[in-house]
């Protein structure tokens, strides 16, 4: 037998007379999938390896072995699964005990009895309702699988965030001269991480546009109207890893600008511009109106992070120029390295679009 479909095919075990043929053609005529097995051996192997949509079995086929096979299947089926067993019984006194005997043999199972000769309409509607219940069970299964995946993904993300926070803390602690400085630097970095995370969550699909990200990180500093920035470039949808990394890079550059660069004076401004050409992305951070800047004597956390993060993102080190007009930083690489990867994309698509 080939092409048995789990949770859809009705498995028929009716080895005597014309029963099997009669039952399968009846079900086929009502557009249900059905498969009859040739004997106990095939019944045993199908029951061990598949999850039938429903089981139809005649009373005289219920040998001790068959009762045992069904018991084993019912006992080992997944937790979400509840197979209906439809038993076709012979009219007469010998069947009076059967429901009780089978309830003991298959405890807690869903059993339906039909007396022969069969009323077709009853049998068909009984099997249809069993198959409908199976559809709901399949939904439950899909939800369980999805929830397991989400829990796994969540665990993974939490671990990643903790690893990042731990690294930020250890490095900030080493670079701080006192507790106040540690509190301020660490707090700022943690806040940016939180803002980026919240913005990603808000979009619902882990996708943020570069312009939104730049505004998200820089806007809090311009709330009092003194300092200003401009962000301009074509729309670029960022993947979630690129969003976090670029968000933190912009935060470090802004912090540096406040301490030493354009934003240390009221008239200073920052221009963040980017372009895309032939799949290549280039970003420029340019400060103006501030004091003349020079390369710092010591490489601090901010500079190191900006360099490491951009190197990791683009596979290329950023070019930093300490010009008289202000600091300028250029970096670029293949656009695809900051775009959402296929896993990000599928997570943002509505369920059910797969044909």
């Amino acid at each position, binding site marked *: 037998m080939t092409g048995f479909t789990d949770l859809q095919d009705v498995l028929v075990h009716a080895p005597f007379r014309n029963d099997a043929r009669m039952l399968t053609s009846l079900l086929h005529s009502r557009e249900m999938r059905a498969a009859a097995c040739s004997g106990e051996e095939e019944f045993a192997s199908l029951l061990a390896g598949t999850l039938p949509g429903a089981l139809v079995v005649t009373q005289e086929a219920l040998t001790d072995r068959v009762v045992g096979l069904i018991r084993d299947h019912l006992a080992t089926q997944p937790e979400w699964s509840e197979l209906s067993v439809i038993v076709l019984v012979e009219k007469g006194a010998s069947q009076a005990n059967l429901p009780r005997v089978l309830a003991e043999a298959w405890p807690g199972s869903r059993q339906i009895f039909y007396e022969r000769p069969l009323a077709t309409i009853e049998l068909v509607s009984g099997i249809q309702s069993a198959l409908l219940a199976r559809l709901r069970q399949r939904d439950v299964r899909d939800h369980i699988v999805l929830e397991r995946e989400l829990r796994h993904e969540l665990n993974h993300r939490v671990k990643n965030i903790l*690893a990042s926070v*731990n*690294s*930020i803390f250890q*490095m900030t602690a080493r670079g701080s001269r006192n507790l106040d400085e540690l509190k301020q630097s660490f707090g700022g970095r943690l806040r940016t991480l939180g803002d980026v995370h919240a913005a990603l969550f808000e979009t619902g699909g882990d996708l943020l546009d570069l312009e939104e990200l730049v505004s998200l990180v820089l806007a809090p500093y311009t709330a009092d109207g003194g300092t200003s920035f401009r962000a301009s470039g074509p729309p670029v949808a960022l993947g979630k890893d690129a969003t976090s990394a670029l968000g*933190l890079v912009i935060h470090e550059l802004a912090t540096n600008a406040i301490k030493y660069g354009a934003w240390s004076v009221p008239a200073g401004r920052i221009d963040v511009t980017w372009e895309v050409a032939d799949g290549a992305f280039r970003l420029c951070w340019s400060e103006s109106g501030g004091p003349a800047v020079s390369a710092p004597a010591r490489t601090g956390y901010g500079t190191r*992070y900006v360099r*490491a993060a951009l190197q990791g*993102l683009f*596979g290329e080190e950023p070019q930093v120029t300490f010009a008289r007009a202000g600091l300028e930083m250029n970096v670029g690489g293949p656009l695809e390295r900051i775009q959402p990867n296929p896993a990000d994309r599928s997570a943002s698509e509505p369920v059910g679009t797969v044909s």
Partner: protein
Amino acid sequence: MKIFCLEDNALVVMHLEMIIEEAGHELVGSASSFAEAKSMWSDLDFDLALIDIDLSDGRTGVAAAEWLHARVRLAAFVTGQTDLASSCEHLVTAIVAKPIDEDVLRGVFSDARRRLAVMAS
């Protein structure tokens, strides 16, 4: 010792670099994907690779460890995927869980140094 980092989180790379330098070793290179690392490894001299399992080109850290193991080069996992790491612990000298415990990592450096001395003799 010359150390290489295969890790896609730039923050963790920086943190590792800091611990490596403080312990008197040198970070000679880093990559965020196995594909990138492989292109660098053929002509890069290093004594120990620190490898995360989830990288920017997927769960390729195990393949990276296999690649180095086949060439008798030392590697240690530094990863949140500790279950997966444990299932292939024969490929590495140690498994360091994230978030990183710096003392544990320094222990991994000392151990690698001893192994290198034995391999050289």
